[in-house]
């Protein structure tokens, strides 16, 4: 694989025809690899189940794995689980979408124009390191307890990763590419729309993939504090009834959903930026 930013992009891409054939030879056989990956996972679950049933721990501290599955099954049967997943997904999508809509144009403007850089960069440098969760109290004061507040926090969570990646993407556009476009008669607006933005998109997408994970972390925390429904709320509510199995079930679902979404982003990346394939091969 090539060095630098390309590695970041390609690391989680689905294997591309031909490019991946050399991999198993280097890393050992596929069967051994699968064994390592799933073996550890299954092993941990078995140990968990044994410890849970051994009587060494109270069920409140460590319910066995099968009880967590049971909790998932029960809440799925009642529909609570799907409602919670639906609400959380909805909030993530809204926050992520809004964050993206704000971050991409602003990122392009800052990366492209010195004036915009001078205007916005200082503010962004100060606000960026503040964890989105630290905004929760302020968002409740401003927007009250409820959806608006959660949306605000989730938007913040995805805004900065996308913004920072877009700025970097725009700044890193090969100067000669812009010169080439000029000699082909491109105007400034054409250079921006037809060269700079498409050239920066792969980098922006890396930011988006990070932002999806971020949004999940943030939405769950925000849900615990300021809304009803959603996975965060489900966990928080279960805690009060000492329903540890449901707490764990909720956590597991959050983990799975986040992985699923990040994977989906990876696939989308592979499709959108298939023109980069050659770079993967070096």
């Amino acid at each position, binding site marked *: 694989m090539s060095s630098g930013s390309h590695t970041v992009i390609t690391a989680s891409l689905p294997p591309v025809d031909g490019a991946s054939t050399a991999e198993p030879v280097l890393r050992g056989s596929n069967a051994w690899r699968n064994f390592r990956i799933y073996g550890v996972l299954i092993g941990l679950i078995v140990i968990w189940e044994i410890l849970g049933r051994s009587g060494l721990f109270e069920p409140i501290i460590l319910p066995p794995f099968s009880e967590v599955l049971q909790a998932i099954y029960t809440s799925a049967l009642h529909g609570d689980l799907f409602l919670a997943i639906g609400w959380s997904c909805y909030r993530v999508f809204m926050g992520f979408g809004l964050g993206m809509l704000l971050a991409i144009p602003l990122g392009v403007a800052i990366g492209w124009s010195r004036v915009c850089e001078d205007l916005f960069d200082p503010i962004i440098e100060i606000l960026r390191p503040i964890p989105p969760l630290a905004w929760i109290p302020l968002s409740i004061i401003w927007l009250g307890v409820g959806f608006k507040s959660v949306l605000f926090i989730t938007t913040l969570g995805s805004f900065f990763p996308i913004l920072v990646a877009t700025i970097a993407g725009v700044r890193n556009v090969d100067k000669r590419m812009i*010169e080439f476009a000029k000699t082909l008669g491109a105007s400034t607006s054409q250079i921006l729309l037809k*060269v700079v933005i498409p050239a920066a998109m792969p980098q922006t997408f890396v930011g988006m993939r990070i932002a999806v994970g971020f949004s999940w972390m943030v939405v769950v925390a925000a849900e615990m504090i300021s809304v009803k429904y959603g996975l965060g709320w489900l966990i928080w509510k279960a805690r009060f009834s000492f329903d540890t199995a449901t707490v764990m079930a909720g956590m597991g679902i959050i983990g799975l959903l986040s992985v699923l979404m990040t994977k989906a982003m990876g696939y989308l990346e592979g499709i959108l930026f298939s023109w980069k394939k*050659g770079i993967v091969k070096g």
Partner: protein
Amino acid sequence: MESAISVRGVNKVFGGFQALRNVDLDIRQGELHVFLGPSGCGKTTLMRMVSGFEYPSSGRILHNGDPIAGPGPDRGLIFQEGVNFPWRTVRRNVEFGLEMKRLPKDERRKIAQKFIDLVGLSDFASHYPSQISGGMKQKMALATALANDPDALLMDEPFGALDAQTRSVMQRELLRIWSEANKTIIFVTHSIREALLLGNRISLFKTRPGEIAKIYDLDQEPGKRNVDRESTDRKLVDMEAEIYRVMQNAE
């Protein structure tokens, strides 16, 4: 013969460093003119001034009688590393300049196809740049520049990054395309052999300060048109030795 590009008493100073001194040069309409010289001799600087990305500190550069005011589609530029737009297929790369002119789609298609065929990339029109070789990328860049119908092509060590085999194929190809497309070409290189094979004329640059040491008229001196030359021609080999001596003395 008419002169396409006239360089008149051009000096270029970069923060106290004199990159070019007193350059006078007329590049004829339709000729393949080579800038030859060691690195740091100002040949690329002069080419960048002709393309409009740099301006002379003093003196003037005229293109068809008008001073050059900036980069423009009348002077196509080709970089060493085959700069392209990697998210566009070969076809859409070649269409780029036509798209900037807002030509209708079917017209763009037609013109692009003509130049894709001319450079021999017909089978690769729907490939992405990452899927084709370095030589093909340069052919694509050539087609992209030509599709825009410029008066002149400015090529900055275009084959410098290619392996020897591909390079010699590309030199042949360039001559074929040049003779079909009928464009003025400025070709920058530091390879004496490449200069001798391709040029109608060679401007030999020397360093510190950058100046044109001598202009060779190859259509007269070796007595063969560039399209008919072979790298093994006795006269070319002799000239190579002579130019090499001049370059050594100049340093």
